[in-house]
């Protein structure tokens, strides 16, 4: 009697072949409903028309009638036009903010995961606790702290400082600090997990083989945590690129405007220009998707290397 295990209908553990892929169905349905369809809708708006009476964009669902003019205008403006300035500034802000996340977040994650001993969960909790408060609320409190007669300036004045700065007057570094503060726990968390996974035995082995502390770190810990850093960066980068509350609240100056502000403007203010906002959203999504692909490729490479 032939066993079921060899038949085409069953896999090696005796389950019908469709069972395991079947578990993916809810995820596929979820993604198509809440990602693909809205994404298509954004395309339909970017390539659509304007309702002449209500002055608002009308989505064009049929790709045969898509009108790419708005899209072309947006691309032209991004490369060498007005929007290019904003896009470049956004990339710069995110880049600096990410670098700061690494500089600040790495030592914190390292300490909590490797040095804090049995208090590590308390430390982790303390780091995360402020972030149970809504992002907007936290930015609002920064506004209070940094306003001309706010607590920061009060402290400075107490130390005898005169000529107190107006922190909210449109400084690049204030916006960048806001971004870092807002998103850094999402960098620390995956990095913590990556550092936490490193087996102490590998570090001991490095020491036994004669590596000093610095060598152990650079040749063992850092390479093993690199994907944690990348993962954390991807997680903080994505919302930073779309952020518009931070520059709005902490500055409001045209100097510190980010691409998210511009998208917000086209969608919520000059609403008849909604198609421009939609086109800009698509470009931003592709750009961010490019970063995501780099991350996935790098993870993939690391897994391959680990297997060898």
């Amino acid at each position, binding site marked *: 009697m032939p066993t079921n295990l060899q038949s085409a209908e069953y896999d090696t553990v005796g389950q019908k072949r469709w069972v395991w892929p079947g578990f993916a169905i809810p995820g596929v349905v979820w993604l198509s409903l809440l990602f693909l*369809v809205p994404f298509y809708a954004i395309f339909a708006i970017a390539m659509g028309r304007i309702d002449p*009476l209500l002055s*608002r964009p009308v989505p*064009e669902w049929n790709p045969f009638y898509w009108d790419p003019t708005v899209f072309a205008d947006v691309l032209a403006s991004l490369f060498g036009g007005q929007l290019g*300035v*904003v896009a470049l500034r956004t990339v710069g802000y995110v880049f600096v903010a990410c670098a700061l996340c690494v500089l600040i977040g790495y030592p914190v994650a390292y300490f909590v995961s490797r040095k804090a001993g049995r208090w590590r969960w308390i430390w982790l909790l303390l780091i995360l606790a402020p972030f149970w408060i809504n992002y907007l609320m936290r930015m609002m409190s920064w506004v209070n702290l940094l306003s001309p007669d706010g607590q920061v300036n009060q402290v400075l004045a107490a130390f005898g400082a005169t000529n107190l700065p107006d922190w909210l007057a449109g400084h690049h570094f204030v916006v960048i600090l806001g971004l870092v503060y807002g998103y850094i726990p999402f960098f620390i968390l995956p990095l913590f997990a990556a550092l936490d996974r490193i087996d102490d035995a590998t570090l001991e082995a490095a020491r036994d083989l004669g590596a000093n502390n610095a060598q152990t770190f650079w040749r063992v810990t850092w390479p093993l945590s690199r994907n944690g850093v990348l993962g954390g960066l991807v997680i903080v980068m994505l919302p930073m690129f779309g952020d518009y509350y931070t520059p709005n609240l902490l500055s*409001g100056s045209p100097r510190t405007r980010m691409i998210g502000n511009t998208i917000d403007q086209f969608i919520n203010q000059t609403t008849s220009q909604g198609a421009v906002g939609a086109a800009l959203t698509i470009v931003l999504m592709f750009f961010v998707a490019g970063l995501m692909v780099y991350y996935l490729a790098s993870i993939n490479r690391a897994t391959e290397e680990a297997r060898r």
Partner: protein
Amino acid sequence: MVYHPRQNWTPAGRRRLYTRRDFLQRAAVLGIAVPVLPSLLAACGDRGGSEGGELVVGTPSNPVEQPLFDDNTAIESGLEAEEGPLQLYNWADYINPDLIPVAEEALGVGIEIATFFNEEEAISRLASGEVAYDVWFPTSQRVAVAVAAGLIQPINHDYLPNLANVWPQLADPYYDQGSRYTVPYVTYTTGVAWRNDMADSADIEGQENPWDVFWNPKYAGQLGLYDSFTDTIAMALFRNGVADPSQASEADLEAAGDALVELIDLVDVRYTIDGAYVGIPEGRFALHHAWSGDLVNSQYYWPEDGDYTVTRYLWPASAEGSSVNGPISNDTLAIPVNAQRPVLAHKFLDFMLDENNALENFGWVGYQPPQINLTPAYLIENEWVADFLEPALVTPEDFERDTAWVQGPLDAETEALWSDQWTRANSGG
């Protein structure tokens, strides 16, 4: 081309709730159209879209009656009020919450408030026909669009005895002569707000062009404009001496954009939405572009040890010595065409037009109701508004000034030009 208002015009979801096209569009949004994509594409063969009715836009010098339509008539007189709850569709924080229980008692029904974030969102949702609110709070500049798109119904004045309390200029307003579709809610002007401890009043008062103070390098880092493209572009146009921003040429707009770009380096301008009522009390701004109602409101945002009496406001259209124009406007109350409780809605409109209720609402909202008896003198005498803020109060005659400008709707093409300049102005170098 001029269409008869109803020619070619079937607002989605108004007359026929489910045309095939509408259904498929909605289905596509819900994501259930994926299996029926071919039929969806077929349904889109009709390229027309929604052709507009004719917009009838009035100005104070050229008042208009909004057209009436056979298929959109006011309710009969003397009907029984419906069961509640009454559904309001309003901006956030734009009605005194303490007034709601009073209204509930007066009307004998519960009241529910839904809010919109901006007017475009409100119009989109009302035009989709997916929502049915009983009372909506449109600005006067959208009334023509709302009528042409069949979003609001005519009102029956038999239910509105309190309309007699309203300034004649707004009981029979330029944008809707005879108050066929709307009643006025609150009025406001747009001008300059400042603190006289941080800014020199002489730089604004008595100036020939008070708007020009925003270009005064003395106030670098201390001044803000509204993060609102219509208000701010219009302001820059006035400052450049354009009398009617609605008629601004492309060159005018370009010059206004240049002027705003100049502000970035000249005065470190910032764009805010709360700068007038929060930023000034907090000392973040010495001066700010301001809606008069925001400034009246600002008194509640001062820190306890702050001195509210330094607040000042000026509307360039009425200021002595000023030769430039300034915006004035008002918001309205209207009844959506698909309101489920039109009789109750009329009663609510009348409730809001009652003098005491209007005053009570003003005390919280800060925007002034156009009531005949609630004159600036009365409001100041009874300490609703401090005397130094008298310039922030609107009088009925203000609407008749040659220097007063009312904002009309921008068509999509013009808005694109304004939008381009706005993008330039706020992108930074």
